[in-house]
């Protein structure tokens, strides 16, 4: 199983959770996971939509209060 990196993007307006994820995926290996924390409701849709487009894997999406936890696995 790969490593998991945390990106705490709570309260992040710019560049925002998805951009942080895109940047973060460039720094990890195939098989690694990134967990994004976000208080932006749109991220729960934007991130899986992009992940699907580029053929990575959305491992899970959970909401705890105002915070979304979105875990993505780098597949290529």
């Amino acid at each position: 199983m790969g490593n998991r990196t945390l990106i705490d993007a709570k309260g992040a307006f710019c560049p925002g959770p998805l951009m942080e994820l895109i940047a973060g995926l460039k720094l990890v290996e195939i098989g690694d996971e990134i967990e994004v924390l976000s208080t932006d409701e749109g991220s729960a849709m934007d991130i899986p939509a992009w992940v699907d487009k580029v053929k990575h894997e959305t491992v899970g999406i959970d909401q705890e209060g105002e915070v979304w936890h979105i875990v993505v696995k780098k597949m290529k």
Partner: protein
Amino acid sequence: MAKKILIVGGGLAGTIVANGLCRQLGKELRANEVNITMLGNDERHMYQPGLLYVPFGRIREKELFRDQTSVLDRRVNFQIDPATKIDAQSKTVTTDSGKTYEADYLVIATGSRLRPDTVPGMVEGAHWLYDLPGARKMREALEAFDGGKIVINVNAPHKCPMAPLETTFMLHDFLAERGLGDKSEIMYTYPIGRLHSLEPVGHWTAGQFEKLGIKSETFFNAKSIDPEKKIIYSEEESEVDYDLLITIPPHNGAEVITDSDLGAGGWVPTDRESLLHEGTTDVFVCGDTTNLPISKAGSTAHFEADTIIDNLVSLVNEGCMARKYDGKVFCFIETGLKEGTYVWFNYTTPPNPGPPGQMLHWFKLAYNRLYWLSARGLL
């Protein structure tokens, strides 16, 4: 024994910290209770936002530079001796000349750099304005351009989040001025599902693009470029052809950060409020090189530096921190060659840009000159 404050990096962040510390620790500096050293890699200080104007012939290159010694307080021991290794635990920095500097307090302000080499074909096929050689090359290309399709391709991560849009709007006006508006098409690509990371800016831009006839494609991250066929391919399996390609290349932090195992990609893990390097109590990180999920911008560096100055002074004199950074960012937006607007936000206040106007454009032009007062800690 004098407390040693060592600042690694001579860009805006490091310079504001150094100058601010001198202003607040004058008595301690005179009494030799504190000394401040800065390690830089250039005798000149560059005003990076000025690069935006170079390809359009709107600024003279000499306006971008001042001698670092003229910007820096004379009480700072400034050494042009780039750091080659930073040990954050021992607060020891080794430099290009082989010297070793030890510190009681360390400020890492090593900035960010362009990495077009990480996208196959980008160096050969694309132009950019984010450094001076690139801006000059782009100016030559625009001079020679007599119509066709220009693609502006934005990649993540990058500094100065407004510059890609500013480039696009200024390019539109530039082409119109040269009578090439009807013979040209501008297309803008962006990594996420809207035209800018800030939602209100993205919405506003969509309206502007429609008004100006600028095409766009979102969810587009460059995978490779074929400079012969003049096609850019995306990770999303899309492709766009071009006659002239302008890119905002992906960025990394400084090489010394990765060489020192301080952070993947050169981004140093940083506490978002204290601005301390995670796991330390006396190593601060300022400017582009933090890993914070925040704009990599001059204003960010400025507001972070102000917080670090207050905290360092408080640590030196009272042994405790003074305040937290609230995530504030402020950005001008040039919406063409003659109008501008601005936006600000922090960790808890969302952005809300105002309508563009001539006055704000003039204020931005004034700031291009006032920047030097900011760097000196006077503004």
